[in-house]
C-alpha cells in the first residue's frame, strides 16, 4: 500500500466525510421528527391522518432508497417539481428513515404496560400529562436500541448519495479510483472513513443503552 498516496488524499476524504456526516445527520434528525409525528398520529388515532401515515410507512419501508432518489432527482423534475441534489438527499433519507423511526417509536409505545397507563390515570393525570411523564419516557427507553440502529442504518444508506452527484465519501472514493487507479488504497481509506464515523455512534448507543438498563426499565414485576 502506498502511504504517501493515502496521506495526500486525506483532505479529499475529510471533505467527503463532512458531506456524508452533515447530510446524514440532517436526514436522521428530520426522520426522527417525521417518525415521531407519524407514530403519534397513529397512536392517537387521528382520523384520516393516521391512514396517510400508515400508507406512507408502508411505501417507504418497502422500496429501496436508490429508487426513491431516482424518482426524486430524475423523475419529479419532469413534471415541474425540482429540488437541488442536497435537498433530494435529505428528502430521500427522511422519507426512508421516517418510516423506520415511526416503527421504532411505535414498538416502544406498545411495550409500555397497559397497567402503567392505568396507574397514571389513577393519580388523575390528564392524557397529555400521562403521555409526557409516564408513557413516553418508558417508550423512549425501550425504543432506544432500535432508534440507534436506525441512525447507523441511515448513515450507511447515505452511500448512494453519489447518484445525486454529491461528493460524499463514496463519490470521493469512486472519483479517485477511476482517475488514479490506486484501487486498494482508495477502498482502504473508504473503509477507515466509515468506521471513524460509525464507531462513535455505536459507542454512544452502547453507553445510552447501558444507562437505561441501569435505570431498571421493564424490570418492575418480580412476580
Amino acid at each position, binding site marked *: 500500500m502506498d502511504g504517501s498516496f493515502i496521506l495526500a488524499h486525506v483532505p479529499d476524504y475529510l471533505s467527503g466525510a463532512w458531506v456524508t456526516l452533515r447530510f446524514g445527520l440532517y436526514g436522521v434528525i428530520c426522520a426522527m421528527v417525521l417518525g415521531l409525528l407519524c407514530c403519534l398520529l397513529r397512536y392517537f388515532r387521528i382520523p384520516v391522518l393516521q391512514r396517510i401515515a400508515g400508507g406512507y410507512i408502508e411505501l417507504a419501508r418497502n422500496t429501496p432508497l436508490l429508487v426513491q432518489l431516482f424518482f426524486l432527482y430524475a423523475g419529479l423534475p419532469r413534471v415541474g417539481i425540482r429540488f437541488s441534489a442536497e435537498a433530494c438527499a435529505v428528502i430521500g433519507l427522511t422519507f426512508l428513515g421516517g418510516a423506520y423511526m415511526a416503527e421504532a417509536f411505535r414498538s416502544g409505545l406498545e411495550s409500555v404496560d397497559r397497567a402503567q397507563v392505568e396507574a*397514571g390515570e389513577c393519580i388523575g393525570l390528564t392524557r397529555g400529562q400521562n403521555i409526557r411523564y409516564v408513557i413516553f419516557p418508558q417508550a423512549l427507553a425501550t425504543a432506544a436500541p432500535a432508534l440507534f440502529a436506525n441512525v447507523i442504518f441511515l448513515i450507511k444508506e447515505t452511500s448512494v448519495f453519489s447518484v445525486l452527484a454529491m461528493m460524499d465519501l463514496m463519490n470521493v472514493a469512486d472519483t479517485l479510483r477511476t482517475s488514479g487507479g490506486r484501487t486498494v488504497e482508495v477502498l482502504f481509506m473508504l473503509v477507515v472513513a466509515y468506521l471513524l464515523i460509525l464507531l462513535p455512534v455505536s459507542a454512544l448507543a452502547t453507553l445510552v443503552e447501558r444507562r437505561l438498563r441501569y435505570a431498571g426499565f421493564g424490570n418492575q414485576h418480580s412476580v
Partner: protein
Amino acid sequence: MSETILEVRDIHKSFDGPGVLRGVSLEIREGEVVVIVGPSGCGKSTLLRCINGLETIDSGEIRLRGEVISGRTRDLHLVRQKIGMVFQSYDLFPHMKVMDNLQLGPVRALGRPKAEVEREALEMLERVGLRDKAQALPRTLSGGQKQRVALVRAMMMHPEILLLDEITAALDPEMVSEVLNVVIDLASGGMTMAIVTHEMRFAEAVADRVLFLEEGVILEEGSPEQFFHEPKTERARRFLQSFTYAARRNRDGIQPKNNPGD
C-alpha cells in the same frame, strides 16, 4: 350519621358474553371500610374498575359525594384525582425514583408546590417505614416495599375514597402483613375504603361491612362477625369453606400407598 361518599346504583357491565356485573348497588359512607369478597371471576375487580372509570358501565349510575361520575369522558381525570386506586401489580413508574413517583400526581395533576409535597411525602414514607427509600428506584425495592409506596402514592392525592384491588395477591407470603398493616393503619385514621381481597383474616380485621359478590350480583351483605361466622347463604358458606382444609382424618389409620409400578 356520616355522609355518603360513594353511591353505586344498579350498575350493569358486560364484556363480550354474559354480564360481569348484573345490577350491583352499594353505598359507602365517610370513614367506612367495605370489603368485597367472592370467587374469582365474580366481578369484584370489575366493580372497582368501573367506580374509577377504567371501565365504562353499560347502565346504572355512580355518584361521588352526590355528583354523578359515571358516563363521563371529558374530565375523567378530575374524578380520578378524588379516587385513589392501588393494584396487585404495584405499577410504580419504573423510570422514576420513589419520591418522583409520589410527587407526580400532587405536583402535575393538582398543581401543588413541590417543596410542600415533598415534605408531606417524607412524612408519609416515615409512617410506612420507608423514609430511607425516598431516593431509591422502584426496582431496588421488595414487593412489599413497592406496594407500600403504591399506597402512599395513592394517599398523596388525598382521595375521598381508596380502592384496593387484591393488593397482596402478587406478594410473597411473608410480605403480606407489612402491607396490610399499613391498610389497617389507614383505616384507623378514618380513610374511606373499598377493598377486594382474598385474605379473609385481614378482611375480618379491617372491614366495617362485608359484601359477598357472586356472578355479578351482591348475594350477601353484613358485618364481618356475622358474615365470617354465620353466613346467611349456602353459597357464602361454601366459599368460606374453600379457605380451610380438611385434616387427613385419623393419621394412624392411613397407610401411604405404595405403587411399585411407578
